């Protein structure tokens, strides 16, 4: 096949050609061509997740978005396991936005909540098993034997001395009716699940050919940069675009609901055009707000009762009777996700269709939102999910903010437009992890045992005002209290009460990797450490006592302690801290070993133990733990978004700092062998880190840091 022919085939099969209008990528990537060819010749499509071509190529359609977490590899492993596929013949692509790809048991297609692997554990294996059953049936007919006489191995059906490659069987298999139900392999027979397996998306990510949303280019695609409100809630009063229109390459300037869009031939012209734009804003009430007064408001709210998230007995009376009480206020700032790929979204609107190219975690909502803006039906909105240059939750906005805006821009422009955010737009654009204040009062009895726990949490609700508002029950947004309201330390106490205040502010807030656990993990595991020291116990022993009935907590705690050398003295000038936290159906414990260098925390090593049930891809799990630890360290050491006169003070990586190579500790990951059902992975490594670090800092200096980022006082 000539290059041109394969390119046309690629365009046709990947749906980029609409009618006679050929939309072409400037740089057709070799791997995409290969995939397209596999699809072009696909003869066998037993279900929505799998295509097998006559040449034996197997293409797997991902219902979820690859954003680094390794789903591009873990889900194909599930199919390949049951299919007994030749792993080297697997290729992967993001599925279109369609009902077939809705998350299991949910009315939408999305990626989040560390759910992809465990929710798909059965569906993707069944997809492979169904295909295998059909291929076996086709082979049995061909060989003239009973299906039971056939076995499958490495992409072939074998019966006695007869053997056929899957590719040879696809035409016959395609004519067969899929069985209603197929048995799945016994875990003992797994060849792939549980094996450390390398990523399938490496090649295109090391040669520059991987296509992220930012990399979408086609003839006629313009680029827009949007001037957005400098203060949340501000609106455009008026604007003067005369200078902007003078910039070479600027094609148009249009007001859109989120601001004023400068539309140009390329990014730099759009950016210069925006610089030249003069916008008068009606700043609104938030222009008077500062981080300090927001924190003061939160602290004041924490002194009173609110909706109850968890309650048993009578915490107030039990606290009054306690032999000893510990009270602590903790505070955590707003955080930006700051994924490496700034937000972007390309949109092409036709009379009866809208095509969107973007890295998104929320296809179904994006589709519905785009339909609303364009007046089209959702099924007329076609979403091409590109690789995500990091998500961490930012690309899963219930409002579809960056998609809606891009559709508005393309609609206003009347031309295909890619709307691109700068890093400054990203850092200042909101959708932050909400700031939180916690107040805890914990009572101990005369023997130093926990007797009562009162805990108040104050922070904006992520679900409130979103399409998921209905998930708020009795005033409780569980994403604000998870990790506290369901904490084993608290739930085990006969007297406890957890209250939540959800003040409304115009700051857009959103889930950030590990969601509520991103603050509750720090607060709970710091508090437990405080209690251990207050009762004169070793932090590990104290936790072991409290978690005696929580075997999986205990398992990771003991493993991390053992592997980190807990109990043996660290090197001179160093100290260790430990923390354990359950989230997303998995359990993680971490030991951080630190010292002080030039008055700042230097993290030398983080030892991580993880119990996520069945470990589908141990290599991916190790990578995600490393990733979660680094993400948590960035938040613990640096992360904060501050407001002055309503304006975000940080703007780029120089003042919204994240961990760099020279601050990188050694990270050691130990996976607890398990046959429990799989749990989450992508977020689970984050929650314990900050606490392990803060607890190590206390062990080293005697300073208890009750806020993030951690500060070392002289």
């Amino acid at each position: 096949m000539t290059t041109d022919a394969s390119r046309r085939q690629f365009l046709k099969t990947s749906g980029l050609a609409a009618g006679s209008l050929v939309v072409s990528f400037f740089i057709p990537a070799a791997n995409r061509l290969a995939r397209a060819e596999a699809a072009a010749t696909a003869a066998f499509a037993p279900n929505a997740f799998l295509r097998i071509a006559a040449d034996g190529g197997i293409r797997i359609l991902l219902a979820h978005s690859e954003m680094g977490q390794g789903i591009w590899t873990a889900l194909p492993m599930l199919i390949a396991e049951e299919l007994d596929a030749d792993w080297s013949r697997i290729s992967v692509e993001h599925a279109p936005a369609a009902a077939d790809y809705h998350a299991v048991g949910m009315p939408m297609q999305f990626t989040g909540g560390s759910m992809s692997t465990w929710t798909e554990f059965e569906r993707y294996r069944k997809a492979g098993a169904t295909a295998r059953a059909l291929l076996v049936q086709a082979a049995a007919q061909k060989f003239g034997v009973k299906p039971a006489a056939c076995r499958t191995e490495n992409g072939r059906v074998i019966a006695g001395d007869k053997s056929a490659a899957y590719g040879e069987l696809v035409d016959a298999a395609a004519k067969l009716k899929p069985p209603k139900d197929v048995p799945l392999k016994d875990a003992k027979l797994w060849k792939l699940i549980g094996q450390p397996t390398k990523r399938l998306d490496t090649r295109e990510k090391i040669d520059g050919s991987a296509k992220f949303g930012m990399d979408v280019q086609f003839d006629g695609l313009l680029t827009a940069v949007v001037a957005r409100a400098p203060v949340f809630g501000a609106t455009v009063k008026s604007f003067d675009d005369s200078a902007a229109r003078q910039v070479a390459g600027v094609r148009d300037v249009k007001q859109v609901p989120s601001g004023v869009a400068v539309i140009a031939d390329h990014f730099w012209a759009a950016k210069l055009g925006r610089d030249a734009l003069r916008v008068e804003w009606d700043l609104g009430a938030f222009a008077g707000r500062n981080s300090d007064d927001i924190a003061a408001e939160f602290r004041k709210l924490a002194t009173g009762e609110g909706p109850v998230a968890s309650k048993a007995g009578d915490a107030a009376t039990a606290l009054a009777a306690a032999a000893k009480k510990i009270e602590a206020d903790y505070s955590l700032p707003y955080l930006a996700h700051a994924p490496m790929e700034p937000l972007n979204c390309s949109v092409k609107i036709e009379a009866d269709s809208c095509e969107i190219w973007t890295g998104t975690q929320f296809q179904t909502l994006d589709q519905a939102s785009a339909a609303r803006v364009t007046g089209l039906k959702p099924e007329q909105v076609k979403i091409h999910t590109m690789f995500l240059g990091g998500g961490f939750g930012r690309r899963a906005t219930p409002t579809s903010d960056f998609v809606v805006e891009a559709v508005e821009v393309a609609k206003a422009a009347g031309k295909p437009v890619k709307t691109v955010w700068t890093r400054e737009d990203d850092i200042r654009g909101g959708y932050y992890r909400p700031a939180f204040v916690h107040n805890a009062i914990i009572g101990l009895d005369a023997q130093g045992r926990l007797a009562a726990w009162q805990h108040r949490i104050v922070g904006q609700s992520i679900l409130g005002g979103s399409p998921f508002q209905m998930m708020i029950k009795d005033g409780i947004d569980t994403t604000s209290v998870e990790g506290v309201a369901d904490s084993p330390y608290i739930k085990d106490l006969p007297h406890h009460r957890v209250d939540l205040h959800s003040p409304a502010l115009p700051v857009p807030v959103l889930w950030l990797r590990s969601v509520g656990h991103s603050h509750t993990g720090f607060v709970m595991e710091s508090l437990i450490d405080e209690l251990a020291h207050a009762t004169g116990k070793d932090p590990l022993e104290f936790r072991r006592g409290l978690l005696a009935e929580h075997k999986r907590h205990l398992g990771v705690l003991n493993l991390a302690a053992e592997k980190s050398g807990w109990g043996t003295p660290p090197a001179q000038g160093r100290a260790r801290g430990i923390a354990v936290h359950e989230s997303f159906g998995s359990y993680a414990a971490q030991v951080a070993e630190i010292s002080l260098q030039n008055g700042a925390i230097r993290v030398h090593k983080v030892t991580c133990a993880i119990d996520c049930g069945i470990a589908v891809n141990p290599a991916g799990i190790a990578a995600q733990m490393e990733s979660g630890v680094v993400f948590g360290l960035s938040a613990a050491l640096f992360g904060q978004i501050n407001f002055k006169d309503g304006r975000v003070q940080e703007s780029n990586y120089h003042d919204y700092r994240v961990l760099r190579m020279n601050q990188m500790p050694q990270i050691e990951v130990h996976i607890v062998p398990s046959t429990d059902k799989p749990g989450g992975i992508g977020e689970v490594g984050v929650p314990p880190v900050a606490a392990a670090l803060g607890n190590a800092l206390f062990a080293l200096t005697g300073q208890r840091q009750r806020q993030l980022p951690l500060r070392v006082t002289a």
Partner: protein
Amino acid sequence: MVSLTINGKTQQFDVPDDMPLLWLIRDFAHLTGTKFGCGMAQCGACTVHLDGSPLRACVTPVSAVAGKSITTIEGLSADASHPVQQAWAELDVVQCGYCQSGQIMSAVALLKAKPDPSDADIDAAMSGNICRCGTYQRVRAAVHRAAELSKA
């Protein structure tokens, strides 16, 4: 008009003199492997080579490199066979992948200047490249591995 050699190919580009090289590479040469991450030399995602030396394309005006020779990730090898790319694949370094073109270009520059770098050398040369997925530990190991592969 600016004349520039990118990956061995000399081309004329009709762009303003003070446009960052990054946007010439991406929007005019249509080589999208070089990434936009911060626009102010903070993250290293835009790293290319100027006559073999690393350069942050996002803060380099086109006028500063006119007539010179630039190498991007696409020009590193035809088939991902550069020892650094091989090491990256062997050690399963990438996650989301967005920063990795820049990481690889920085690693190549490091190994050119220091064929057998220590951990401290790697820290010094690679700390300008941010990875939000936190692949640093594997990047470090892969640089060592690439040093070995280069010797072989």
